[in-house]
């Protein structure tokens, strides 16, 4: 009994914090950077490992996210990912997911073992996939790291999209039984390409040929 009471007290204590977390508004899009704290080259040591198991590795980019200043003065926020070692090419998918109104303005640089850029996919390689933009690629032999970096030409651009959808609910009848109720609704999704957002990277083998 005392144990149940302790659990109840614990839950009561945690509930307001959980509620506050659930109701917390995501931060507004970050579209400017002073760049004072930016490094001169992205650090390979910070790379997060991506398994070859179709499991997403997620990074939330917000104030204080790593950034680097290129030789031409361009500032980019970034997240570094270490790609799986494999003798066979495989598929890497980079998703930039909406967080509030922020969509990380992503481009992808593929780096070799020494951090040299061997391929770059600009923001035009991305397509909308629902509430995210995504780009997939087949890896090539020298590519060891995927550097997902902000595209300075895209940051600050806005767009809005119509999002129609069907919501399902239902009603229990007085005499028993259940009636499904589907209704059509729509909203306007407002998007700002930003230095902030959520980036998810995954890797999976190429499907076997028939």
């Amino acid at each position, binding site marked *: 009994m005392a144990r149940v009471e302790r659990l109840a007290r614990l839950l009561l204590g945690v509930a307001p914090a959980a509620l506050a977390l659930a109701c917390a508004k995501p931060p507004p899009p970050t579209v400017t950077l002073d760049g004072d704290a930016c490094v001169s080259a992205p650090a390979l040591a910070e790379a997060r490992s991506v398994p070859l198991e179709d499991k997403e590795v997620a990074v939330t980019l917000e104030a204080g996210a790593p950034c680097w200043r290129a030789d031409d003065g361009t500032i980019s926020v970034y997240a570094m990912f270490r790609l799986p070692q494999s003798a066979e*090419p495989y*598929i890497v*998918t980079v998703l930039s997911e909406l967080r509030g109104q922020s969509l990380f303005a992503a481009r992808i640089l593929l780096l070799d073992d020494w951090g040299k850029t061997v391929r770059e996919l600009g923001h035009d390689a991305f*397509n*909308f*996939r*629902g509430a995210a933009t995504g*780009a*997939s*690629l*087949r890896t*090539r032999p020298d590519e060891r790291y995927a550097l997902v970096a902000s595209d300075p030409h895209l940051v600050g651009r806005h767009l809005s*999209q*119509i*999002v*129609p*959808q*069907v919501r399902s609910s239902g009603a229990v009848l007085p005499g028993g039984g259940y*009636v*499904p*109720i*589907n*209704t*059509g*609704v*729509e909203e306007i999704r407002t998007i700002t390409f930003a230095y902030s957002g959520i980036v998810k990277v995954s890797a*999976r083998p*190429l*499907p076997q*040929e*028939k």
Partner: protein
Amino acid sequence: MRGKVIAAVAIAAGALTMLAGCMMPEIPYDRETAGGIKHVGIVTPHFHPEPDVHLASSVGQSFGLIGALADVGLKAERDKRFGRILQQANFSAQEIFTELLANDLRARGYEVSLIAMRRDKDFVKSYPVHTPPAVDAYLDLYALNYGYIAAGIGSPPYRPWVWMRVRLARAKDSAVLMQDTIVYNPVIGATYTKAVTIPPDPRFEYRTFDLLEADPAGSVRGLRTAIEQSAQAVGKLLK
């Protein structure tokens, strides 16, 4: 009556099939390493002769089989009436899509041939091997749906809708070089999370089907825009 019951069951089964179909994994194309794909043969894309004018949620859905039967009848009537509009406008979704796609691919540096084939609502089972013209790869496409869709009655209006699958297969060994799903005006949200989605153009919307029917020129133009943007999305996957 029996036919309508079968139709209702078929629609329910079809919806499930469509949901399952959405899970087709995306395979990205790498033009540089694909093995010299310069000449693409577009296999006659499949578009059903009659368009879909779909109401994604309706009162009928709350009333079991009877409601489903009513929905089937209403939808068939809308399909037929919009089909008539397309016919009167001499509008063939398949021909327009093929032409726009061929132009898009040529602009991206591909040589393009049209490969006439009779086919169903699925990818082609086997591609021609020794039939001229000799192409490097076959671009195989079929529309699951095209026409107009509304999320519900009244408030979310009817807007153009295209839902298609695309595959590029190497001619010499049928290896899949690219495959994806494209949806213009994705209404059934979660169903399309892995597809390339194109939000609808707000210029083309009709609060009711009667209003859509009363504007044949505008409704055809709306569908053409959806088809055009879908063709561009396919081209982009092959850049």
